[in-house]
């Protein structure tokens, strides 16, 4: 069977992770921030699976399953918090959450 270069795969994981990081830093809409966090989870999972395939072990895939479960729990709680925020402030802009500053 043919082979994949590991560097290219890890490079893609790094690209996706940094794109997600830029999204978290620059966007002020909290929905987009949550989506960018999902992108970062996914990139980390990609790195896990490729490293597992490099070693010929199943552990990388096991880690991706854990990441998947954690992302599901995180999204459920995060979206509930966003809905509460929208109910209270009628906005999804993170700048309205500045009560502690005033």
């Amino acid at each position, binding site marked *: 069977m043919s082979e*994949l270069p590991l560097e290219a795969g890890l490079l893609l994981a790094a690209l*996706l992770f940094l794109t997600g990081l830029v999204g978290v830093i620059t966007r002020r809409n909290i929905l987009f921030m949550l989506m960018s966090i999902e992108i970062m989870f996914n990139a980390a999972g990609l790195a896990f699976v490729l490293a597992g395939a490099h070693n010929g072990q199943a552990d990388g895939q096991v880690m*991706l399953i854990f990441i998947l479960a954690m992302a*599901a729990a995180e999204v459920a709680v995060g979206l509930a918090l966003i809905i509460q925020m929208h109910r209270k402030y009628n906005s999804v802009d993170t700048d309205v959450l500045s009560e502690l500053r005033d």
Partner: protein
Amino acid sequence: MNIIFYIAAIVAFVATVMVVTRKNAVHALLYLIVSLLAVSVIFFISGAPFVAALEVIVYAGAILVLFVFAIMMLNLGANSGKEEAKLLKPNAWVIPAILSLILLCELVYVFINYDGASVELRVIGPQEVSQSLFGGYMLAVELTGMLLMAGVVGAYHIGKEKKREYHRYLQTNENS
């Protein structure tokens, strides 16, 4: 195989950039689904068919549908795109983008120096994965179950619409 990998990688990267730069939340969500499907293709060709299926079912099928429902509940309205355009000024994103680009250059440098490694395409099927999952990782599986339970209960509790409770005096005041 390599050509499929590179096509899927380009699709994943372009779709991810589109997610971060879109102004409409639903458009960004659709691009995110495309990105996840492309990553799923990469999982499949790197010998992980079980996880590829799981990525489509759980990520694209369940988590992003949750996002769609949340966007429906938020009911953002037609002019939310314009508000987003106001928020997304260049002076807000240029410096973080440059810093991330520096990090990316470092990573590229590290990966280029680390040559010779390759992914041998041995298919690791569901049987091997589950033997590992329920063998050495049993405790982690149970902890994940507890985490999901806490997530469900927490999401229900946080997302519940709180009933405003007034004192008797205020209630009669409001009624009169």
